[in-house]
């Protein structure tokens, strides 16, 4: 009896302890860099003396600004292209593939398992040889899209799986062309899924080093500049850059979370839930 009581008393602290250990493991390095980026002694900010000096240095460095512009471009265009392609592929899979769905799906997500280095290398060779693309942004966007497409497909597919395609039937019976059906009925109901895929692809392409490295030639991006900067020691700009990128990523995720909580965005159309709510 006494033994059981002790076990029960320990249960809650044990749970909380495990949770804390997991969170510390995940976030301590990031917190350390974040603290460093706003401290006078950035390499050992204990105790911290707050200053924006590292960010000022980052702002002065035109190389980082060019790199930021390029990374944004890669991120946005890759995300747009992969979301669009993945949306088309998912609709094809769910509406027309029938019993072959799984076979097609495997081929669509196989690129996930190709090492990024290999993908970068093979894209470099192929794009140069057959598409006459030297190392440039466009070539990098194409290669990143190969990688992001599979993620986008998985995200969109989990959402569209619940979409009731008979709503499209209804629209067509009532006189809508297939294109009009898509824009009037399908898109307004599935856009949150597409938006989620876009955000994830943006973050992945924005942060990508391995694929972009092979295809960009001399064009700088944030990850490649940061990697190159290592050779000259870890400069304060890198602290600012790392925490800056992390803040942006967490902000984007935070916005998504708020949108979901307030119901402004529901990921995936759930007619069954709406009906059961009556």
């Amino acid at each position: 009896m006494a033994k059981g009581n002790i076990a029960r008393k320990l249960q809650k602290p044990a749970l909380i302890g495990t949770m804390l250990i997991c969170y510390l493991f995940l976030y301590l390095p990031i917190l350390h860099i974040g603290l460093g980026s706003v401290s006078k002694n950035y390499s050992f900010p204990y105790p911290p003396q707050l200053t924006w000096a590292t960010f000022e240095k980052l702002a002065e460095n035109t190389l980082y600004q060019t790199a930021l512009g390029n990374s944004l471009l890669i991120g946005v265009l890759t995300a747009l292209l992969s979301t669009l392609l993945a949306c088309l592929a998912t609709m094809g899979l769910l509406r027309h593939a029938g019993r072959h769905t799984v076979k097609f799906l495997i081929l669509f997500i196989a690129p996930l398992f190709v090492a990024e280095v290999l993908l970068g290398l093979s894209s470099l060779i192929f794009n140069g040889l057959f598409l006459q693309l030297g190392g440039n942004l466009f070539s990098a966007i194409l290669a990143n899209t190969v990688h992001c497409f599979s993620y986008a497909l998985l995200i969109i597919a989990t959402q569209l799986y619940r979409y009731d395609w008979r709503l499209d039937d209804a629209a067509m019976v009532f006189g809508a062309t297939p294109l009009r059906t898509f824009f009037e009925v399908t898109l307004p109901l599935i856009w949150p899924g597409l938006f989620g895929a876009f955000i994830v692809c943006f973050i992945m392409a924005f942060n990508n080093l391995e694929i972009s490295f092979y295809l960009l030639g001399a064009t700088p991006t944030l990850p490649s500049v940061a990697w190159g900067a290592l050779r000259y020691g870890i400069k304060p700009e890198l602290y600012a850059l790392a925490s800056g990128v992390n803040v942006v990523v967490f902000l984007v995720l935070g916005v998504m979370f708020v949108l979901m909580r307030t119901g402004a965005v529901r990921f995936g159309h759930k007619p069954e839930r709406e009906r059961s709510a009556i």
Partner: protein
Amino acid sequence: MYISLQGISKQYASVWAIDRVNMAIAKQEFVSLLGPSGSGKTTLLRVIAGLEKPTEGRVLIDGQDVTELPPHKRGVAMVFQEFLLFPHRTVRENLAFPLRMMKMPKAEMDERIDWALGILSLQGLDGRYPNQLSGGQQQRVALGRGLVGRPKVLLLDEPLANLDRELRQEMEVEIRRYQMKLGIPFIYVTHNQEEALSMSDRIAVVNKGHVEDFAERTTLYDKPKTAFIAQFVGRSNKFEGKVTAADGGSCTIDAGGLSLTASGNGGLKPGDAAFAFVKNEKVALAPEGFVGEDNSLPCTVRDVILRGAYAEYLLETSDGLGLVASRPRSGEGPSIGHAVVAHWASGDVDLYPVKPDLGLRR
């Protein structure tokens, strides 16, 4: 005829979901496609809508061959079992959808929508979203969306299946009323014989992808053409046996020691295996010792099920054969345990061969 289906077949992989269906429907007709689930009735409706392309055959609407036309060019409308209202649009916007697709001027559109809201008593709900409506209200909006564009034909796919019984009976009357008012054909898919019988002018009984019979509802009920219809429409006692004697006017079959006489022979010869059906309400009850008519059978009342205006007597013969008689509840009927004689006229026995050759492709 206003709508004509000519030799419609639909093959999925190697299965014929619909097999050579021919139907002609007049402009003012209310037609039901009645059949069990998986019989192909919904597929047939989707072929008329253009949502499925038939493997063989032609669909004609108002004299025009629409077989190759996509759904949005057919001028049809449909009411779905799951309602399928657009969840991101209000009631008014849902009703406006077909009209917008027709590029109707705004003033006329508003007039039409108000008309639909009026006849379906949906006034005051036009700003609501579908998930803020009850099932019955959603169903009425779905019906309104089907009627508002004055389609050439309204296709209804089990529209009442998701409603409770009371609401369903109310809607049956309403739907029939709109059909007569608008004077357009309604094609109504259902697995519920009561729905089909209460609303339709004619009923097509669909079984295994083919139409067993397409006839006036009274004909279908009183003179079922096939064993399937006899079993599916109405409630009947079913006997299986061998034909012992048959001439032009009558036929006798032996069903497990029970001898049944039927008028007409259903094309059967002595020795053929046959099904015999007697509708529950055709079985009359008489006191013990009664002899007469063509078929009489001494039984015991095992149970009485009260159905309101009538009662169902579950009977059992001394051989253990079960039998049901439906009688109107006038005066005192026999009670449980009583010995009675069940009897019926030979004209009320419908005979069919056990293995009819439907000539279907399998």
